[in-house]
């Protein structure tokens, strides 16, 4: 536990350069500055490690980095996505607060691999404590000669800046994030072209999640195989899981991929006394909800969670006990997507509002007999019909809540009140 991103967590001033370096921090970056590592070696190690994008999409990081046209004679950028906002997710906040240098070193290594001399860390606007921590760490790194131009007399240069958001979930989508970084509304771009070709300010750009970057230095220090062996097949390494909701001790846990869900639940102190597990959203609000039985048989890795019928997402495990009204829970999520849709694509802009209004009318006791079919029809027309994944993210909970807990919706429509709460 706590072997990579949280390596310094239990130490005094875990966020300081001194603590980071005492734990082997910046050893990989210094090797690079001495010319002892090549971009190809780094990409190979990352591929071996099995590290996949920790923001939710799970794309292999080594492969992503290899897509950058590193020899193109233009300014290239490396961007960190710290716009953490998926309901249930609060891991990147703790990485930035407690181990910001791991993000800086990870981004620096990425910049070298992709020959990008400038980087931005896009931090959500509400994360002021993490922002100040990150800024403090940047200053320490500059003062120590770890950032800047022609570092240590080498030809390697890297300038890194923190950028703040202003409150928009959609900016966690990588192309919306780029728009936002350019000072525009955060509306996603069409892909292709992908950011590796046309990204920030029209230049080749690679965007990775905070946890992905923070994992890179330790992977390279210990070796890709070391990381891969921590996890299971197809899910290398360890991962941060935010366990929240109806548990006794909600917390972030950095544990090996493949850990049984029931062990993770136990680490979080288990379900509150006298109650039983009812449902689990395993990867953040966008991922399908699971029944207690499906969850208890599941292992926490990409394939294990997929087998159980959901997705690992950002590793945000939301626990619901038997006092939870599933109609209320879904209505809350539907409101979220309705609120956060950027308004660009009609199916999402109209569909998210439609879903919310129908659920709201059920909650108000005015549900109609065919509302369940209506909800299923609307979500089906959103999925796959939008520029970005927010539409899918809004639709997937609807389908899974209705599939797994249909009787609660039927009861609410028929009786005008909650089956659970009365």
């Amino acid at each position, binding site marked *: 536990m706590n072997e990579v991103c949280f390596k310094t967590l239990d130490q005094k001033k875990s966020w300081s350069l001194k603590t980071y370096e005492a734990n082997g921090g910046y050893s990989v970056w210094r090797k690079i500055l001495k010319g002892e590592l090549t971009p190809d070696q780094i990409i190979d190690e990352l591929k071996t490690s099995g590290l996949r994008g920790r923001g939710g999409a799970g794309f292999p990081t080594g492969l992503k980095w290899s897509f950058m046209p590193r020899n193109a004679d233009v300014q290239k950028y490396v961007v960190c996505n710290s716009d953490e906002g998926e309901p249930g997710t*609060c891991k990147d906040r703790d990485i930035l607060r407690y181990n910001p240098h791991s993000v800086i070193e990870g981004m620096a290594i990425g910049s070298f691999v992709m020959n990008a001399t400038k980087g931005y860390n896009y931090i959500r606007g509400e994360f002021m404590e993490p922002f100040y921590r990150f800024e403090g760490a940047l200053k320490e790194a500059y003062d120590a000669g770890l950032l800047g131009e022609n570092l240590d007399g080498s030809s390697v240069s890297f300038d890194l800046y923190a950028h703040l958001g202003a409150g928009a979930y959609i900016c966690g989508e990588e192309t919306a994030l780029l728009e936002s970084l350019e000072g525009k509304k955060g509306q996603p771009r069409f892909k292709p072209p992908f950011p590796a070709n046309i990204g920030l300010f029209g230049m080749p750009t690679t965007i990775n999640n905070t946890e992905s970057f923070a994992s890179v230095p330790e992977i390279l220090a210990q070796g890709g195989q070391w990381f891969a062996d921590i996890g299971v097949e197809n899910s290398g390494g360890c991962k941060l899981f*935010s*366990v929240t909701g109806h548990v006794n001790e*909600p917390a972030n846990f950095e544990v090996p991929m493949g850990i049984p869900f029931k062990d993770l639940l136990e680490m979080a102190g288990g379900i509150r006394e006298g109650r039983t597990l009812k449902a689990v959203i395993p990867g953040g609000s966008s991922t399908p909800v699971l029944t207690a039985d499906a969850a208890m048989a599941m292992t926490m890795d990409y394939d294990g969670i997929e087998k159980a019928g959901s997705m690992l997402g950002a590793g945000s495990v939301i626990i619901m006990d038997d006092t939870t009204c599933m109609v209320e829970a879904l209505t809350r999520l539907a409101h979220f997507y309705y609120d956060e849709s950027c308004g660009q694509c009609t199916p999402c802009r109209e569909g998210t509002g439609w879903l919310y209004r129908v659920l709201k009318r059920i909650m108000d006791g005015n549900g109609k007999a065919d509302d369940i079919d209506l909800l299923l029809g609307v979500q089906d027309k959103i999925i796959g019909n939008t520029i970005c994944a927010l539409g899918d993210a809004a639709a997937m909970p609807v389908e899974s809540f209705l599939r797994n807990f249909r009787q609660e919706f039927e009861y609410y429509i028929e009786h005008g009140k909650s089956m659970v709460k009365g």
Partner: protein
Amino acid sequence: MISNKAKKQIDIWVAKYPEGRQSSAVMEALKIVQAENDNSLTTEAIQAVADYLDMPGIAAAEVATFYENYNHKPVGKHTIRFCHNISCMLNGADDLIVYLEKKLGVKTGEVTKDSLINVKKVECLGACVGAPMFQIGDQYYENLTTDKIDEIVDGLRKKSK
């Protein structure tokens, strides 16, 4: 319209972006100007930011209306941004919001008569392990209870006296 102090703060942000890309600083510039103008933005203030960053007024206005953290009417001195998303909801946020509304004598979205506090329901603030939680200014307050809310609100009132 924009003070010299604010201009200096904005310039720090402008320096982070490539030459000619100063509009990347618009989000922070709007926040800086908002903080200077009783926590809300007028059309004139938005235009002044646009002028300062040499970008079209409509582009700054789009940003000011797209993102959540800008206000376009008076909101009082402190905004309590109460998360009501799933993890906070499961941990009793709804009851606490009602408690806070009663304590302040306002509904969410309204400002107290003394213009000190307004309460806003917001979506996930990314501190779910500390649910239920809210934000005031730069600071997060986590694992809220009615007692904690009393303490925080009474503290704000005392400070303003």
